[in-house]
């Protein structure tokens, strides 16, 4: 089955209010072209899920697309500093933060992938996350040990990932760091793949290393060369610092549509 479609088509399938897990980590292999498209399509009330997000979450907050964020860390690293649009949105009460320990996002996604309502989590000791995040709780050990923390399953409606290779059926391969992408595929109801390259049918069958994402779990495949820009794509391109800075310099939501238009031109 041919699942190739345009970015616009793929992103149109995401309704307002959807819970969306976004692949990659900080400024690494983030499906930014898809993120831009969500902003262009003016999504509303998205519930974002990520271990460590940066420009993706920042941009969707600036665009007013976001209702809540489940994450362990939302910030650029080092010189690019904090996600100010995200911060402002949270501080104004426009965006709800469910703060996690990165690992509790992983555990919550695992629970969804395993079809269970919650996952016990070792290690949540003295932390106010337990009181501030309603997805966390405690449970008795039925085998007689001490109580243990648990996190409720998080089952995103969508996972959006940017990969190196995908075939038209949706078999997909990431080279280098996978971050939480593969877990997101298993935990989510629907999966949108954006890919640097479309490979021929049967490409993966002839490999010693198989696609990590099976076609039957994928709903849409978008051919998006440079689809991670301005974040880095391992083996392909580094972070485009100027573009990150240009975004950080926008200041107000009114400037965003022009920026997004510019990105559309650049992608052509």
């Amino acid at each position, binding site marked *: 089955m041919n699942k190739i479609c345009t970015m616009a088509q793929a992103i149109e399938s995401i309704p307002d209010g959807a819970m969306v897990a976004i692949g990659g980590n900080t400024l690494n292999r983030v499906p930014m072209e898809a993120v831009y498209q969500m902003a262009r399509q003016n999504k509303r009330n998205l519930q974002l899920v990520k271990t460590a997000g940066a420009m993706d979450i920042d941009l969707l907050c600036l665009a007013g697309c976001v209702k809540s964020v489940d*994450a362990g860390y939302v910030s650029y690293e080092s010189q690019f500093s904090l996600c100010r649009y995200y911060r402002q949105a949270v501080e104004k009460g426009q965006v709800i933060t469910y703060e996690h320990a990165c690992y509790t996002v992983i555990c919550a996604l695992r629970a969804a992938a395993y079809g269970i309502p919650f996952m016990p989590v070792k290690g949540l000791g003295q932390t106010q996350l337990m009181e501030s995040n309603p997805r966390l709780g405690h449970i008795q050990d039925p085998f007689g040990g001490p109580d243990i923390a648990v996190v409720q399953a998080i089952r995103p409606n969508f996972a959006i990932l940017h990969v190196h290779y995908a075939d038209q059926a949706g078999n997909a391969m990431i080279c280098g760091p996978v971050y939480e992408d593969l877990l997101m595929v298993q935990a989510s109801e629907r999966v949108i793949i954006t890919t640097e390259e479309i490979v021929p049918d049967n490409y993966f069958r002839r490999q010693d290393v198989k696609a990590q994402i099976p076609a039957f779990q994928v709903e849409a495949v978008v051919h998006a060369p440079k689809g991670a820009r301005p974040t880095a794509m391992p083996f392909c391109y580094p972070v485009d610092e100027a573009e990150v800075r240009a975004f950080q310099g926008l200041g107000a939501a009114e400037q965003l549509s022009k920026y997004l238009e510019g990105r559309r031109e650049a992608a052509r």
Partner: protein
Amino acid sequence: MIRPSDMMTVALARLLRDGETVFCGVSSHLPLVAALLAKKLHAPGLVLLNIPGGVDPEKPRLSRITSAGSELWDSAAAEMTLAQVFDLSMRGGLDVAFLSGVQMDNRGGVNASLIGDWRQPKVRLPGGAGSAVLIPTAKRAIFWRTKHDRRTFVQQVDFLTAKGNVSDVMTPLCHFVACQGELLLNSVHPYTSIEEVAENTAFPIRYKVLRKTTPISDAEVSALREVDPHDLRSIEF
């Protein structure tokens, strides 16, 4: 003149032992360089673990922008995803985790989450990343922070993101060690004084024996240049 970034990096490296598993997360250039420095100097069997999942990368060419990028994967011998690194810590197998934050109290409590009340934060911070589960489970959680002022080292944190096995705290001015749940001043860096530390710390400074941090040796200087030629350890300074 000794630069605080160099002193911090070297002093952190000295805390690491051969054969230890050491995790560095996002926005962690300074401890990443410290781990590579330790590996170069006295801990060749140190195993660096990280977010991209490259186990023990060899002479990685670090990126200025991220400490979670594929440069830590490319020259790795094996792969261990972030989820698996966390798992390792949860089952008691992680020796050292480097973590940072915006506030710390003298009981080793860390705030990386927010300023104000969590129901209506005045300032939303990046979040603790792995802190809440790593600080209680890593055998030694080493807290580092490139600022040492009274807004960082506070009487009481606004929000307790994590607390647990903090063993050491490294700042541009000094090195605290945890002793029976309390941070004690262990050594003051050569270019400063206990008075300056006290002035910049909102909790009372206590210590058993007051030491100066051992100055950086020539061997440390040259190893530092080799593992971090582009001075990424100083990014936050």
